[in-house]
């Protein structure tokens, strides 16, 4: 499915301009156990619904940002810079 994704810098653009860079997950501490690292690297919620994702405006301003996007209907999404992620409604 094709849709328009919002870049916090450039505004609404064709999704083809962007690269999906994986789900946003909190990185474990270096002292954390092996299981938390494999979980961080390999496992995903992969929900039908809203979740936080990393996107990169590859064919545009090349900046990285966080999108809170619904994986069933992408028209419903919110894009913010990493430092503003706390302003998103849910995690």
């Amino acid at each position, binding site marked *: *499915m*094709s849709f328009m994704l919002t870049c916090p810098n450039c505004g609404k653009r064709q999704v083809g301009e962007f690269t999906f860079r994986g789900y946003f997950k909190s990185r474990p501490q270096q002292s954390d156990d092996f299981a938390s690292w494999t979980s961080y690297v390999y496992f*995903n919620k*992969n929900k039908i619904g809203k979740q936080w994702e990393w996107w990169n405006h590859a064919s545009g301003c090349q900046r990285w940002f966080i999108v809170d996007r619904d*994986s069933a209907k992408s028209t419903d999404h919110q894009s913010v810079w990493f430092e503003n992620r706390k302003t998103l409604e849910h995690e």
Partner: protein
Amino acid sequence: MTKKMWKQHDLKKHYDIVIIGGGAHGLATAYYLSKMGVRDVAVLEAKYIGYGGSGRNTAILRSNYRTEEGIRFYDQSIQLYENLSQELDFNLMFSQQGHFTLGHTEASVSGLTTRAENNKALGVDSYMLDPIEIKKMLPEIDISDHPRYPVLAALYHPPGGIIRHDAVVWGYARGAEQGGVEIHNLTTVGEIRTEKNKIKGVQTNRGFVSCNKLISVVAGWSSDVCAMAGIELPFVTHPLQALVTESYKPWLHHVVVSSNLHIYLSQTDRGELVCGGGIDGYPHYGMRSTLAFLETYAAHVLELFPVLHNVKVQRQWAGLCDMTPDYSPIISPIDEIEGFYVNGGWGTYGFKASPASGYNSAQMLAQGKVPANIAPFSYNRFRENRLVGEKAAASVSN
């Protein structure tokens, strides 16, 4: 009066084994279970059988994989497919017409050569061809140095080919029904119940069903189903698109894949070209097709076959692919919940695996032991960081 291939049953209160998902894998599992004498089995399908990936793939079969684990597993699948029409007494229109994987860069040619040698070592018919030999078998292909990615060589795999995917679904469904298995369409699972880390049953839109063993075989929807049991999976669900053209006289007698151009095509007995590409670059559960895919596909296929410049596209569609980090599937018990099994992570390579996936899943469920052929595809490998890197899993690199 024509005889129905499967009946509508009332949902019982209890089954020995419940299979969630009525695709080729779930139905094959049910069929092989019934052959092993396990008949108290229900297949629960939320829509209709074959609604998902089983009816949306491009029906290509092959076993020329890269890793030993992959080659053995898919070779078993091809061998089961070879006898399947006879076994199910149903014409699956299996055509072992041969399968080309074209290489357009030195890196891809060296990768294909590795695959050819690995295949030969394990007894799978697979070898390299140069452009002159390719041209003899595919007269319409452009092997000049004119295209952006000229054809340098190809991996040729004679046992590869195409089959009628709907027939595989229906054939397995009929076979399972004859063996005493119940197939329940329009039966949605809304809840998975466990008690003391042991499976109890599932809550469906038609009531609660208890069971001794439960297996999730729902490919693209696996994360959603397994989340009901509190199990997280290493999957990301991406759409994969395909298209079919109008019918043309027979001109393409082999399956052709180009990993560099991200395209594959074959011609059906009806003359239509069945075409597919790489996955959409972002996760999605919607199955709408895009103009971007059509444009990219057309541009790339014309580099190989300029003769296609006027063909008309009839339909375009998408299916869901549950991609794993190592491009290998999971067919495994889940240690956290006794009696719960997962068959998924089929990415872009699931349909060709259906018979082997069903056969081994059935053995796993019936005997409570994981067969050697699927032991590498455990769920725990991701917890233990022991991946099975199957980079040749998709016919086009992802």
